[in-house]
């Protein structure tokens, strides 16, 4: 299968929603520190399905005022005696602001976890929290071992999993978490490693 086809297939399997469309275009994108002649072959994020648990929690939080207020009335707690209409309204607005913040945070957390395979190296943008961001690089000729792993019901059903990459770089192990089609990703990395091994040292092609 041609390199472009594999890349398109892996990118397409991350979903065809408007949010994942930039992923398709991003192989023509660039990143900070990109060398001349270096191009992005794969740009991956965790599978869209990994957003399902936070989306479900967000939905429960979104609906909370609809079941909490009747529940409080049921156990004879009446807030209208203590707080006026405007105050109650503000508390509900603050609640929805919190729900929006929660959703945005989880979306950004997902969106910023990026794994890039270029014709020269692999790059792992790890967004571990609001204050904790880590970017790791490893040259393709430093890669020693690649093992894709699909675990669990959803992993098997939706076809996503982890790709473990052993390297001789400063960081000995890279993990591409919950990426779509881990076997094809591993195959593509191996192909690029072999291609890199055939090049003269320092050559970018």
């Amino acid at each position: 299968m041609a390199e472009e086809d594999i890349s398109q297939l892996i990118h397409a399997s991350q979903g065809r929603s408007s949010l994942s469309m930039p992923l398709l275009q991003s192989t023509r994108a660039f990143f900070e520190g990109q060398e001349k002649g270096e191009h992005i072959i794969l740009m991956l994020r965790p599978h869209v399905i990994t957003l399902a648990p936070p989306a479900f929690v967000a939905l429960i939080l979104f609906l909370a005022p609809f079941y909490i207020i009747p529940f409080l009335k049921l156990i004879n707690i009446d807030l209208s005696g203590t707080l006026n209409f405007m105050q109650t309204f503000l508390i509900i607005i603050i609640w929805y602001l919190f729900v929006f913040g929660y959703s945005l945070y989880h979306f950004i957390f997902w969106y910023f976890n990026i794994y890039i395979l270029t014709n020269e190296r692999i790059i792992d943008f790890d967004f571990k929290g609001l204050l904790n961001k880590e970017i790791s690089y490893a040259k393709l000729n430093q890669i020693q071992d690649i093992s894709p792993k699909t675990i669990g019901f959803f992993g098997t059903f939706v076809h996503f999993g982890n790709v473990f990459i052993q390297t001789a770089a400063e960081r000995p192990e890279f993990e591409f978490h919950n990426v779509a089609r881990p076997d094809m990703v591993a195959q593509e990395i191996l192909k690029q490693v072999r291609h890199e091994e055939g090049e003269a040292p320092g050559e970018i092609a």
Partner: protein
Amino acid sequence: MPVEEITNLTGKFNTAFGVKAFLILFLVFYCIFAVMLFRQIQLMSRTLPTVVFPLLKFLAIIHIGVSLAILFMVLGVF
């Protein structure tokens, strides 16, 4: 004024004051969270620009604005 009414009045005052103090503290931290979220988006858009970043930036700015507006409303209304 009967003692019960005074006690009720104090209870109401304390509840409203407690709710106000909690909301202000919550919103102050929330505004810091919103600014940090915006800053992360800004930094990532420099590291790896994609077509969604302008929209994310816009959302983050709106998020900060709304958080601040609600903070001032709580200060005024409660």
